[in-house]
């Protein structure tokens, strides 16, 4: 999150605390908050693993390396004889990539719409907010199934569907926050000094609505992971042989009695990532607010 103190700090090189010391104390405070730092460290690890999954994985996720449903390799062999660990790593990568891009789409469009609707007001906000209401009134899973069924089961489509479906979460939060902040005297002060509306939106209002956006971002990533898993579980997401955590849960379901780990490993991974994202999001909200600095 680019916050306004940083952008203005460039114009004020002499002010010490704002950039350098501010960041250092931010890290310190983060380490002091144990829950957040554990969750953050875990997410960092997950991100690195996902990024370098093809290099870390002991086998190619498509290669047959042993007898199906046996315990060969670190985490066993799946029903096609492929290495489970390798598939888990690639699956994690797929799921995260889909969830993050979907939330990026939703976040950018949703926040922008919310800012404009809240700041401009009048008929602009009416049009935007009614459009958001329409979007909200679709049952998400049914819409996702319908869209993917029409456009074809491709990951890009899943990203778009989840992205569009999650726009309202951001727009509504930002809109309500902007409404209360735009009448604050410091916003009026910026208007009087002649700041351009776009600058007021991005430099003055956005940092002040950042806290709920950040929480919403982390929550949305966790929801998006679950939604991707659900769509993949239904066969609408990642197409074989490419694994995602959802398709692995779906495939593992059939061998619950023979080799339950096929279901358990991807499920546990989903749970851990989602949990870490939620804890991390809550912690970030507190850490980013200068009012909570002591």
């Amino acid at each position, binding site marked *: 999150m680019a916050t306004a103190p940083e952008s203005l700090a460039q114009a004020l090189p002499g*002010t010490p605390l704002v950039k350098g010391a501010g960041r250092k104390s931010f890290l310190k405070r983060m380490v002091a908050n144990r829950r957040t730092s554990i969750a953050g460290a875990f997410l960092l690890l997950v991100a690195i693993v996902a990024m370098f999954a093809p290099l870390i994985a002991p086998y190619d996720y498509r290669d047959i390396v042993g007898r199906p449903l046996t315990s060969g390799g670190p985490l066993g062999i799946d029903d096609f004889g492929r290495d489970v660990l390798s598939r888990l790593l690639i699956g994690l990568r797929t799921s995260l990539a889909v969830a993050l891009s979907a939330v990026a789409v939703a976040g950018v469009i949703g926040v922008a719409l919310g800012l404009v609707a809240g700041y401009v007001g009048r008929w602009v906000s009416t049009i935007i907010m009614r459009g958001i209401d329409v979007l909200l009134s679709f049952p998400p899973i049914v819409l996702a199934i319908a869209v993917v069924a029409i456009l074809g089961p491709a990951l890009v489509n899943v990203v778009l569907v989840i992205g569009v479906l999650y726009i309202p979460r951001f727009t509504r939060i930002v809109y309500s926050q902007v409404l209360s902040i735009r009448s604050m005297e410091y916003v*009026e002060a*910026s208007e*009087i000094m*002649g700041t351009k509306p776009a600058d007021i939106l991005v430099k003055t209002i956005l940092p002040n609505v950042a806290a709920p956006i950040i929480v919403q971002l982390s929550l949305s990533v966790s929801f998006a992971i679950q939604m991707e898993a659900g769509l993949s579980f239904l066969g609408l997401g990642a197409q074989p042989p490419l694994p995602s955590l959802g398709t692995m849960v779906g495939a593992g379901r059939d061998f619950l009695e023979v080799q339950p780990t096929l279901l358990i490993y991807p499920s546990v991974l989903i749970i851990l990532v989602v949990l870490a994202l939620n804890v991390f999001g809550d912690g970030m909200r507190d850490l980013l607010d200068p009012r909570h600095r002591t």
Partner: protein
Amino acid sequence: MTTGTIPSDPILSVERLSVDFQIAGEWTPAVKDVSFSVAKGEVVALVGESGSGKSVSSMSVLGLLAPNARRHDSIRFGGTEMLGLGEEALRAIRGRRIAMIFQEPMTALNPVYTIGEQIIEAIQCHEPVPAAEARARTLELLKKVGIPEPERRIHSYPHQLSGGQRQRAMIAMAISGSPEVIIADEPTTALDVTVQAEILELLRRLREDLGSAVVIITHDMGVVADLADRVVVMRQGEVVEEAPVARLFSEPRHEYTRKLLAAVPRQEPGGHAEPDAATTGAGGGATLRVADLEVEYPGRLGRKGFKAVHGVSFTIGKGRVLGLVGESGSGKSTIGRAMVGLVRASAGTIEICGQDVTSLRPKELRGLRRKYSMVFQDPGSSLNPRLSIGDSIAAPMIVNRYADRRAVHERVLNLLDQVELPTSWADRFPHELSGGQRQRVGIARALALDPELLIADEPTSALDVSVQATVLRLFQELQDRLGFSCLFISHDLGVVELLSHDVAVLQHGRLVESGPARDVLRDPRTEYTRRLIAAAPVPDPVEQAERRRLWRETAR
């Protein structure tokens, strides 16, 4: 430490009361060893600045404290020890024998019931009377507190009444059980001076009619001088002085009381010295010239708009301060906002330094922006909480490309110095500052570009009186030294007289009177101004008694 005389038969006496709050496992004292008492028909004022424990002391009488509070020693009410009374026993006393009037009647009244229903409920919850009788009594109460057309108003919801009428309804509810003690927590703080004068008059009359004892909590020394018999001055949870009202004002014994009294801006001869002819550049053009200004807020969906300002004209000469006074809703803030372009003028012209800003396009306005700026009312929201105060002060210079980084930084330090804040505070954030300090930062930001015109919208009304005094002194010094012109908007005539060279009085969006400050405030020509001046209580019991007499005459 009580030094005052204890009246013969106190109905409510607080003895060595201490209140502590448990915060994060630790007991923090809020009130330490406070004693006072009030007799039948007596008005005792608890005064002090925010955080002095005056509200906590009075709330603890009825046990209306948060569950993390503990009280000890004694509160006696008509022979009963109140501490340690059960909820059931307290309920029999609350409302019926000791009633409470709150500061903000809008939130103290339930918005979904009519005031009639609420008063009837208050009556019936203490006495099982038939509905018809309760209604009859409610009408009588409404009449007693001076609400016009009680037959109609009994069916009104709180939002349909004006602030003063809501407070009257609140008082009607409080006196429904003919209480022996009325506790009023800042009952007039949210009201205009003219309405305040009426409510104080009502309280005085009720005291005479019902013979109730009144404990009034206030920070306004004028209210104290107007109403109280005895005064208890509190600071940081302790009583520093207790005295009969006349003696407290004539010979305050404690250092703090003296400071408090000295801090109240008084309407007194003198006012703000005229600026030198040299700085005004004798005969130089006016900095601000407003002609026939009208502002209309658009209505929604075909409904008629609301006209807040009707054809107002005034000018502010170079280096002069114009005080704009009026009650809430008179349009004074709207005028200030129109000057800086926060609201659009629907007609008329606003000339700043000779240029009409109402007809300028945004691009053309840019060059003019550095000539004016604004100081806001609420120190809590006038600074961006995400910016350090150095960045806040620098913002107008950066936006208007005033200078390079180094020069901007130096200017920030220089400005901090001018508003008497340590330059090392540039890195601090607004939440680390007190209200008065934040207001200084607001002034520094407004002065960053050396404006010719400053709009100050009630810049000190949210501050405690001693803080207000220092901010006003600073403001006056800066104005004298820098010689900017200023539109100073305020409802406080004392503040306006202190700072302004000229005064304009506004009523319902129209200018009723304007001229040199001394002439307007000493020798008002219109009825409205006279009433406004008479309604403002002064911190002097003798003078206030005289003013009250005058006010009664003008009110008639």
